[in-house]
Every structure is written in structure tokens, then in C-alpha cells.
């Protein structure tokens, strides 16, 4: 590679933060809607389905951008295990972002529910009703949802650790703010 980027491209940074907000919202809406019988249940599940499908589209765009632009290198002095941890956790985050919406859709299809999004957009079913498939997809959506929340917390802690404690410029690579001199990554 001749031209290694110093930061994620602006469009990548924009997508990272947009999706971060939306995914955190999805987690809270998901866990909140399944524990209420109040009238807000209906708007919550409508948002959950609509935003979830939108995120599936966004993650595909994001992956394409990632392949096109690549990512800035991690600091040279970062221990190898931490580098590996960072890579693995990012890979996992991408995996969750793809799999969670697919599980959500599959779960509804396998229960013979029509999938109707905001403003009446209907998504045709790609799976027939199946008790077995529904149960499997439901369980996995629930447990991976909880696992994703745990991973997001870990990712958040790591990001803050880089930004506040190590101050090694990793946060600046994805920071939504314009670059500042002292946050520049170390070569």
C-alpha cells in the first residue's frame, strides 16, 4: 500500500456516527418494546423494524466504502494483543450489523407476520412459516442483541481509553470533528 490513510474518510466517519446512534437506539427500543404493553409499543416496533431495515442497507454501503478507502493503521506502539482485539471486535461489530436485521426479518417471516414498515412499505416474505425457524431466529436475535450491547459497551470503553488515557490518536481517526494537531496519530 502506497497511500495509507491517516483518518477514516469523512463519509466513513459520518456513517460510523450515524449508525452508532441508530444502533444504540435500536438496542434500547428493542429491549424497551418487548417489556411494555403501553400504547407506545406500536410506534416503537414500527421504528424498530423500519430503522433496522435501513441499517441493513447502510451497513452494506459502509462495507463497500471500507473496502474502497481502507482504514488508518493502529498506533505502532499498541501491543499486538490489543491490535488483535481491536481487529476482532471491529469484525464482530460488522458481523452483528449485518446479522441482526436479517434475524429480525427472518423471525417475522417465519411467524407469518406481514413485514410492514413506516409509511406502509411492505417487505415480501422470503421464508415460509416455521415454528422451528421462528424459535431459532427469535432466540438468536434476543441473545445476539444482548451480546451486541455488551460489545458496544466494550468498544465505547476502548474508544474512551484511547481518547482520554492513551491519547494515541486512535480516536481522532474516526472523530466526527475536524482534525486537531495534538490528536494526530503517531507514525
Amino acid at each position, binding site marked *: 500500500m502506497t497511500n495509507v490513510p491517516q483518518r477514516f474518510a469523512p463519509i466513513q466517519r459520518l456513517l460510523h456516527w450515524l449508525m452508532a446512534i441508530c444502533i444504540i437506539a435500536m438496542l*434500547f427500543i428493542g429491549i424497551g418494546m418487548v417489556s411494555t*404493553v403501553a400504547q407506545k409499543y*406500536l410506534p416503537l416496533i414500527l421504528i424498530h423494524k423500519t430503522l433496522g431495515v435501513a441499517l441493513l442497507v447502510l451497513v452494506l454501503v459502509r462495507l463497500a466504502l471500507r473496502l474502497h478507502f481502507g482504514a488508518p493503521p493502529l498506533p505502532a506502539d499498541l501491543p499486538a494483543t490489543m491490535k488483535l482485539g481491536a481487529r476482532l471486535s471491529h469484525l464482530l461489530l460488522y458481523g452483528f450489523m449485518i446479522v441482526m436485521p436479517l434475524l429480525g426479518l427472518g423471525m417475522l417471516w417465519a*411467524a407469518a407476520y*406481514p413485514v410492514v414498515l413506516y409509511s406502509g412499505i*411492505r417487505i415480501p416474505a422470503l421464508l415460509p412459516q416455521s415454528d422451528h425457524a*421462528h424459535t431459532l431466529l427469535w432466540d438468536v436475535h434476543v441473545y445476539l442483541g444482548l451480546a451486541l450491547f455488551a460489545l458496544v459497551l466494550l468498544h465505547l470503553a476502548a474508544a474512551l481509553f484511547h481518547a482520554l488515557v492513551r491519547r494515541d*490518536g486512535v480516536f481522532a481517526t474516526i472523530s466526527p470533528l475536524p482534525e486537531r494537531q495534538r490528536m494526530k496519530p503517531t507514525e
Partner: protein
Amino acid sequence: MNQPGRVERSSLGWLVLIAAVVGGSAAAFAYTAGWLTPGRLTPDRMIAALTPPSGPPLGHRRNHAKGICFTGMFEANGNGVELSRAKVFVQGRYPVLGRFNLGTADPNAVDATVRVRGMGLQISAADGEEWRMAMINPPFFAVSTPEAFHGLLVAAGKKDREAMKTFISANPEFAAFAAWAKTAPWTGSYAEEAYNSLSSFVFTNAKGDEHAVRWSLVPTAEPVSIAHAELEKRGPDFLEQEITTRVKSAPQRWTMVTTVAEPGDPTADPSRAWPQNRRKVQVGTLVVQRIEPERDGPCRDINFDPTVLPQGVRVSDDPFPAARSSVYRKSYDLRAAEASDYPRTEVTKP
């Protein structure tokens, strides 16, 4: 200035901050999940209140557990178009799938012991758009709010007779329902019952005009009232046997009648009937052509969630449809997961 990549002593404060951010987020999540507020009425608590002391009806619906499937047609006469742009109101024939059922959590209940009879119904438009509903035969609901319904289930499940008295004094609307249950005539057939939406919904027509409505499926068969003692002498499944033979000999019909609210009518409270003189529009006829047992029938896998609505129909300020949607979803999740406890085809052990 800090050396990049080195953890300074002064960073202890930051570490505490990070821990606080992570801990605070986890606490917010737990709060949203209701883990910190055991008093919140959740679908799980509603299901627990529905569960009989003998345990849950594994593989079956958590309420209205006993039922039988039907299929047929909805014949729209076109009158509904004035009220709602729902496609199934355009004159024509639309396939339906439904379920006659009893308001009990016991799938093996003796038919004569169950006061409330219900119908689950799904009408499909030509393009596949679905409308699902679940209706019952009383003319109004037992209570005003989902919370009161939970209270009723809990009180009715208690051995102590004071519990019901306390419940009724706190929920006086229940008296009208109790009177209905005591005095309303019984019939010997699912085909002789009227099934009422009770909850109000909002119809929107092509011009964008909105009307709060309720609807009923009124039988064309003449209801014949039968002494309850007489019904008790019939077999435990007489309703299912009767509807099966009845439909085999001739399709059974119901007229779908929409009642339009006037300003000020109590749309948010299904325990309060609207005045008799409200405008009524006959929008079509339900024709039930075929009966099939639930075990392998097409209604088994459907959740007749009353919030599965077509364009042109939406929920009103009535709190029940949302509560029911949330609880029915959970009931479906459970019964689908327990499907092996209710195997699809009767397997005879050697």
C-alpha cells in the same frame, strides 16, 4: 502534555469516568428493559396472569386456547369505500382465514363452561395486504384498560373471595360485564354468535377523511337461545362438532357492520358501548366455507394480532390493541417454541 501511548497517573480520573459511562449505560439499558422496575406491566406478567394454576397450555395460545380453523371469502359490497380506502372494501371477493375459539386458557375446556366465544379473522387483499382481527361475542369488554384486565386476571385467580370484591369496587365498569355473563342467552353454535371488535379503530378514506369506528360480524343464522343446563348435557366439544357439520351442509354467513362514532363517543374505552342510534354501514359478508381442526389447520400458525391493519385503517386512542399486540406476540413466541408439545399430526405410539 502527555506522552502518546503511555498511561499516566493522572489518568486514574479518566478511568473512573470511563467506568461511570459504561456503568451508566448498562444501568439505563436495564431500566429500559424493566429489570429495575418489577411493577411495570410487561407482556410476561400479563401471560403469567393468564396462566392457570395447572400450568401453561404448552404449544397452545395463552388465551382463547381452544379453537377450530375455517377458511372462506369476504364479499365486499363496496359500501365501505366511503369510510376507508382499505382495498378489501372495494367490491369483490377476498380470501379469508379464521378461527372460532373460546375465551379460556384451557385447550381442553368443556365448551359449555366458557362464556366468551371469539373469532380470529384474516382478510387478504389481491396484492397480499393483510387485515387481522380478533373479536368476541359480548357487546362490550369487561374492563376499561389493559391494567384493569391484568387486575381482573389476578383477582379471579385468587382463592380469597374478597379479591374479586375489591377488584369490582375499584373497577365498577366490570358490573355490566358480569350482568351480561349472567343473563345473556346462550346459543348452541358458533354460527349463531355476533363477533364484535369492541376496540375502536380509525378508518381513513381516499379523500383523507377520518372516522372512528367499531365493527361487528352479525350472523345471518337466527340465534336460538338454549338453556345453559341443556348445553351442559352436550359433549365437551359440541361447538366444534356442530360447526363442522353445519358448514359441511352449507356455507355460513355473517354481515360485517361498521358503526361510526360521533364526536364525544368513548373511543378509548371498549367497556363502554356507543349509543344505539349511531350510523351503521354494512360493508360486506363473511362466508365460512370450510372447517379444519386446529392441529394441522391453517389458523394454527397465525397470530390474529388486531394491529395488523391495511392502509386505510389504523389504531385509535384505545389502549387495548397495542397491549394485545405485545402480549399476543409473546404468546406466539412461546407456543411456536413449544410446538413439539402439540405435535402437528397425531402420532400413535406402538
